[in-house]
């Protein structure tokens, strides 16, 4: 199950709507091993495409160095589909290289850049196998430990 706070959920949806009809992408980093998505990082889609996304290679390195320095990992990797359902494509499955990540897909096909609900679904993708999981949206206080 993916547990994510409302503000981060809203930020992912807003990014997807803003970049529609191109695919939007990014990560939510969190402490290594915690499974807590805490730090929202929107990325530029270097492919600038309605059917493909790729993090820019230089920004990718910066992101991973930053996460490394903070003992973080990509807890969520998100992107949008803008004309199809929020389900991993063959390309998504073939290129999924983070076995610990929750792969979040948002579909903006219904309302595009406008107000309105989106499909927001989460998956594990390991060795080509897709497993959908529940998404629980909580207020920020609930996702953090009390330390």
């Amino acid at each position: 199950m993916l547990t994510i706070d409302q503000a981060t959920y809203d930020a992912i949806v807003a990014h997807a709507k803003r970049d529609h009809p191109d695919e939007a992408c990014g990560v939510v980093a969190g402490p290594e091993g915690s499974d807590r998505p805490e730090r929202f990082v929107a990325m530029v889609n270097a492919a600038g495409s309605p059917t493909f996304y790729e993090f820019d290679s230089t920004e990718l390195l910066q992101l991973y160095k930053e996460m490394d320095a903070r003992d973080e990992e990509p807890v969520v990797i998100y992107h949008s589909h803008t004309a199809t359902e929020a389900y991993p494509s063959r390309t998504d499955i073939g290129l999924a290289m983070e076995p610990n990540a929750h792969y979040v897909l948002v579909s903006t096909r219904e309302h595009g850049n406008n107000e309105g609900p989106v499909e927001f679904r989460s998956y594990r993708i390991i060795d080509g196998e897709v497993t959908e999981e529940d998404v629980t949206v909580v207020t920020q206080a609930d996702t953090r430990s009390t330390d």
Partner: protein
Amino acid sequence: MAIEVRIPTILRTYTDGQKAVDAAGDTLAGLIDDLESNHPGLKDRLIEGEDLRRFVNVYINDEDVRFIGGLEAPLADGDQVVVLPAVAGGARDRMPTGR
């Protein structure tokens, strides 16, 4: 002295879980051959045919090797090499080729 190679999570099965390993080589191609001799199977995850795999990024001292000679990029002791799989995908059913 040696060259430190940072290994991404998905390839740590080849390095007994280590995040970084030392290797040697005058070029990236030589370094990858040296990695392969100590961590069999790794080369195939980095190279396809005669070139780096399209969706694997390799950096030497923070430079994407595609801009500094690819597999022929020169290396010296003390350099740092980082391997990172691309974060990519999308609704398109066929993966793009080339760059």
